């Protein structure tokens, strides 16, 4: 038997669920309509040539592997550099701090394309000759590392002072406290930023076409240009990037929610 109150609660819950479902439906229909509009714009006004696209698409899609390889390696490098950079920026040693600050300022302050050309063409003149793919990874990694340094620093500083004090009060040295208490907490703050940067990097890795890496944009340009159809091939490229972005954003969300679940961090009032 149910009390009246329980019946009401059930009815309300059901009504809420129905309302939420209707909202979701309307939201999805909205998206679908906009996608349709976009497709209509592309197909109707850009005189898209279907047979050309069927020729070009597989060629462009192959570039995904280079794009992914360069982006993955670069994000790893950037993460390592950002960790070092953040430690440097937080260091009480003036010279270490100056080096980190210079690194951040220089690599954030100058265009990525120049940095790439320096890796590709200037470094060899002092005897450092790297494969183009390593140039791309180096340039992207150093550049993003500089941006991420500030994010890492903010993440470390976002760990409440009380945590540091509790660690110190327990006799932990600065290093132990950082490794065991601060870094793991900062990490959770930082993960979303790393994910965002990876997604952004997918697109910035297109610059690697300058140094003859046959990634997505290189392929789109080269197959489109001959027939004056780069607009069409770039739209294919854009769709590829958009798909990659959506996929990796979903992966990122999954990772974040798993991290959160790992905490069993559902707060309880008390």
């Amino acid at each position, binding site marked *: 038997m149910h009390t009246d109150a329980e019946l009401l609660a059930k009815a309300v819950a059901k009504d809420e669920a129905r309302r939420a479902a209707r909202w979701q439906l309307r939201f999805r229909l909205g998206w679908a309509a906009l996608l349709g509009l976009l497709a209509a714009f592309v197909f109707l006004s850009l005189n898209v040539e279907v047979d050309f696209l069927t020729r070009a698409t597989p060629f462009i899609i192959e570039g995904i592997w280079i794009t992914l390889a360069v982006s993955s390696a670069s994000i790893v490098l950037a993460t390592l550099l950002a960790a070092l950079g953040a430690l440097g920026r937080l260091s009480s040693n003036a010279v270490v701090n100056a080096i980190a600050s210079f690194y951040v300022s220089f690599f954030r302050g100058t265009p990525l394309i120049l940095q790439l050309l320096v890796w590709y063409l200037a470094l060899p003149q002092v005897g450092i000759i790297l494969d183009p793919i390593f140039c791309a990874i180096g340039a992207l990694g150093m550049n993003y590392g500089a941006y991420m340094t500030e994010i890492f620093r903010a993440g470390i500083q976002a760990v409440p002072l009380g945590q540091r004090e509790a660690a110190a*009060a327990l*006799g932990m040295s600065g290093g132990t406290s950082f490794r065991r208490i601060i870094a793991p907490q900062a990490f959770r703050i930082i993960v979303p930023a790393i994910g965002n940067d990876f997604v952004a990097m997918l697109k910035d890795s297109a610059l690697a076409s300058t140094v003859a890496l046959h990634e997505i944009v290189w392929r789109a340009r080269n197959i489109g240009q001959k027939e004056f159809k780069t607009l069409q091939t770039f739209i294919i490229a854009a769709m590829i990037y958009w798909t990659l972005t959506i996929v990796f954003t979903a992966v990122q969300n999954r990772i974040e929610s798993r991290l959160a679940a790992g905490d069993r961090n559902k*707060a309880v*009032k*008390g």
Partner: protein
Amino acid sequence: MSDMKGLSTTPAVHALHPAEKPGVLVKPGAEPVLKATNITKWFGENHVLRGASITVWPGETVCILGRSGSGKSTFLRSMNFLEDPTDGTVEIDGVIVGADPFHKEGSERQERIREVRMRAGMVFQEFNLFPHLSVIENCVEAPIHVKGMARKEAEAIAEKYLAKVGLLEKRDEYPSRLSGGQRQRVAIARALTMQPKVLLFDEPTSALDPTLVGEVLKVMADLAHEGRTMIVVTHEMDFAHEAADRVYYMDKGEFAEVGPPEQVIDAPKDPRTKEFLSRFRTLGAKK
């Protein structure tokens, strides 16, 4: 830096306050376990501590009272050098550390500070549990990574103290799933697991929902009664009254009045203490 000679801290001789006498639980002839001498702190132009001294014998519980901003926290945090005093000396269990305002001493002093910290467990107002570690991990983190204790041994000790604060069954829970009172009790167990000589409490119940204050005070009272050495900064007059061997009333960075709770709380002599207690009671604790 010759112009600073004579200013710097030649370790002042520790002098007892007339009212500082070993409490009832103290073994006769026992030496003080904590002596803080002439603790002075400037924050820039702000003279926060004006040469405060304290003496605590093993087994004693002392309470520090005083109004907001009087310097209670700064004083307590100077005991384990979370706040580095401008002048003065702290001695805990034979380890002596003096102020070093001109940073002349090096890593050897840092080592001694860590020795002091291992001997002085601290419980904060905001608990400061490590949110990424479970209750038991919170407790064994320092014994393992500071003292180099084996995990097994550390866990055994931690479990003992978790049982004492009544939270053994929350062993594998994460702090975010505990109530405020439970968190503070875990924080106490964490401090105990390091087996310190002295426990420092900085308003351990101020961040708690009033209905949860009791459970924490109860644990603290138990610790006091079983002979733990404790320094407690608190606004809980009743706790001070019941558990303290001695009460220190701090005013503007100085101890204005020292004595047993019956005297300082019930019959204060110093006008500042009087005024504080009267203000404190208006409506707040009228009965």
